[in-house]
């Protein structure tokens, strides 16, 4: 059978790939995709810990449901922000949105 370590290493790798996407990509939508990858890695961790450490309690699954809800809210607001920024400034490249920089 698969030990817990497989899932943890897999989720850590997925999280680091997502982190690279967030830090390195220029386009704001790709940054959001990186955040999605990171959230998915967190979800794998939550459900793997539920399955391996406390399968008799439902807490882990309830926690995962919350993570799903947060992810959906975050994407909806984020994409609305990008569309609004695109309308006003005609770009969504992260390094050209520098209104707050001085």
């Amino acid at each position, binding site marked *: 059978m*698969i030990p817990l370590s497989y899932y943890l290493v897999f989720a850590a790798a997925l999280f680091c790939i997502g982190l690279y996407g967030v830090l390195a990509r220029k386009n704001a939508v790709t940054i959001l995709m990186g955040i999605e990858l990171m959230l998915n890695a967190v979800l794998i961790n939550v459900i793997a810990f539920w*399955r*391996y450490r406390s399968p008799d309690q439902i807490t882990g699954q309830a926690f995962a449901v919350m993570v799903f809800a947060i992810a959906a809210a975050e994407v909806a607001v984020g*994409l609305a*922000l990008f569309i*609004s920024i695109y309308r006003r400034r005609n770009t969504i490249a992260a390094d050209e949105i520098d209104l707050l920089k001085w």
Partner: protein
Amino acid sequence: MVMQIIFLIVAVVTLGSAVMVVTVRNLVHAALWLILSLFGVAVTFALLNAPFFTVVEVVIYIGAISILMIFAIMLTRRTMQETGRSVNPGWWLAAFLSLVLFAGLLWMFSTWDGFSTTLPDLPAGVDQVRELGIALVSPNMYVLPFEVASVLLLAALIGAIVVAWERKS
């Protein structure tokens, strides 16, 4: 043994398409690779005996979030075919940081004695989906976080409409 082979195939496909998401230049292709990667995560949930989350992953992430992203990419078309670089000048620093984080996580795992926990049996005769449904609405378990989450979703919905509203002047 069969489970391990299935897991390894799924992990390789998921991580490979995740790498494609963060490196490929065309944004629509990145969104399609993201969908493949999310399918891999859904299969992982199935391997973890969480069928409810497999369905939720497919419906919410692949069905809603990815499609929303493709819409956003199409609505911001000029930057879609950007001819310049698709990464920041400091991308090597980002790659270095990610590798350092990965190595740090691996080191942290190796010092934890629960790292190679073997698979325990699920409690027999318990319907996990039913238990989860009861837990989410029962007053002495998670009804309050559940309601707060639904209010958050409603606020995000209204907020998204307000932010993206085009005012006709």
